[in-house]
């Protein structure tokens, strides 16, 4: 929530549209890349989807009146475009191998920890992709750090609905990840 308030305190009025677009893409490149990865099967599809996000953002920016944070606005657009993308492509099980090449681990200097985190991230991504779309949307937004209220804003549903979806999605995710934590503890 604090991050949202900080975002809104930046006055975007003096920016040219191109500058604003580039700033928003720079600030939110990582979340956008992760949303794209949770819907797109291959690197090429992900690139196309990212381009779709950027184009949709460019078209929608003049209509943005600041009634929500920029992050919420951008994620809403990204998820809307992703639904359209799925309507064209249809649901299928997805391979994650191609994503491993470009995914960058952010775990500091230790390459072993970096590799381990990347592997876990990829497993999580694979599991997320296997969820039904309404559950996938809630989970990816939760993982991005949005509150239930913000997710409700993005998806245009009630907070109660978000809570129900989140509980079910997390239960499914636990099963899909195969109780990884328990294995680690043993």
């Amino acid at each position, binding site marked *: 929530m604090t991050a949202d308030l900080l975002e809104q305190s930046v006055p975007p009025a003096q920016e040219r549209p*191109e500058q604003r*677009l*580039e700033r928003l*893409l*720079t600030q939110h*490149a*990582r*979340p*956008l*890349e*992760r949303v794209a990865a949770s819907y797109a099967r291959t690197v090429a599809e992900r690139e196309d989807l*990212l*381009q779709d*996000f*950027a*184009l*949709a953002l*460019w*078209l*929608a920016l003049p*209509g943005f009146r600041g009634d929500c944070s920029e992050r919420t606005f951008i994620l*809403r657009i990204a*998820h*809307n475009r992703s*639904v359209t993308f*799925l*309507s064209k492509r*249809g*649901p299928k099980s997805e391979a994650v191998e191609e994503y491993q090449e*470009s*995914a*960058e681990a*952010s775990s500091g200097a230790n390459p072993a920890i970096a590799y381990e*985190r*990347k592997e*876990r*991230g*990829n*497993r*999580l*991504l694979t599991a997320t992709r296997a969820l*039904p*779309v*309404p*559950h996938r949307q809630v989970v990816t937004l*939760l*993982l*991005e*750090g949005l509150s239930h209220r913000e997710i409700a*804003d*993005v*998806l*245009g*549903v009630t907070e109660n*609905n978000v809570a*129900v*979806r989140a509980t*079910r999605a*997390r239960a499914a995710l636990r099963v899909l990840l195969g109780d990884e*934590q328990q294995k680690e503890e043993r």
Partner: protein
Amino acid sequence: MEQPDVELERWKQQWHALGGREDLARSLAERVARDGQKIRRELALEVAAAVASTALCVWLLVDSRGKPVVAVACAGVLLFTGVWVTRLLTLKRTSAGAEVAGLDAFIQLTRQRLTDEIKWQTFRRRSLNVMTVLVVPWTVWAFLHRYALYRSHPWLGAAELGLLFGTLIALFFHLPRKLRGLEASLQRFDSLVDDRTLR
């Protein structure tokens, strides 16, 4: 005091370790600028085609001094152009409004767009049937009328009639295929978003 959600925090950490190309924002901004130009060009081309066909119809009407056959043909072309432009503007309006609504509203809009597109393709398919019913007798009449010319210049007859029938046959194959594709898209989309466990 509220317990920290350990599981979610662990997942978040793993999730945030994904992604992060340095040049992504700049390359996307460049692609958007390029694609924006392309979209504007395509839109301008469609509007220019509508203006050109209208101008041609007006010129034909003036040149033929309102001959009934020309008048009927021009009325058909102008009607088609009008429907085409209306559809273009309607789609543009729904596309512009779609990004700022909630996701459920967006799903409704996407479904509506696919349904509209199916209706439009059905309209085109029916228009083709009507056009075929009109064109075939007209072609026979034109062939008989210009028989002497075609006899002395067979290539002209082959080119004119070949082009006409070639286009019709191509449309007869293309339109149903496109319609089937759209119907499949709508069905796939509905099955994808209609998760009854959430209702």
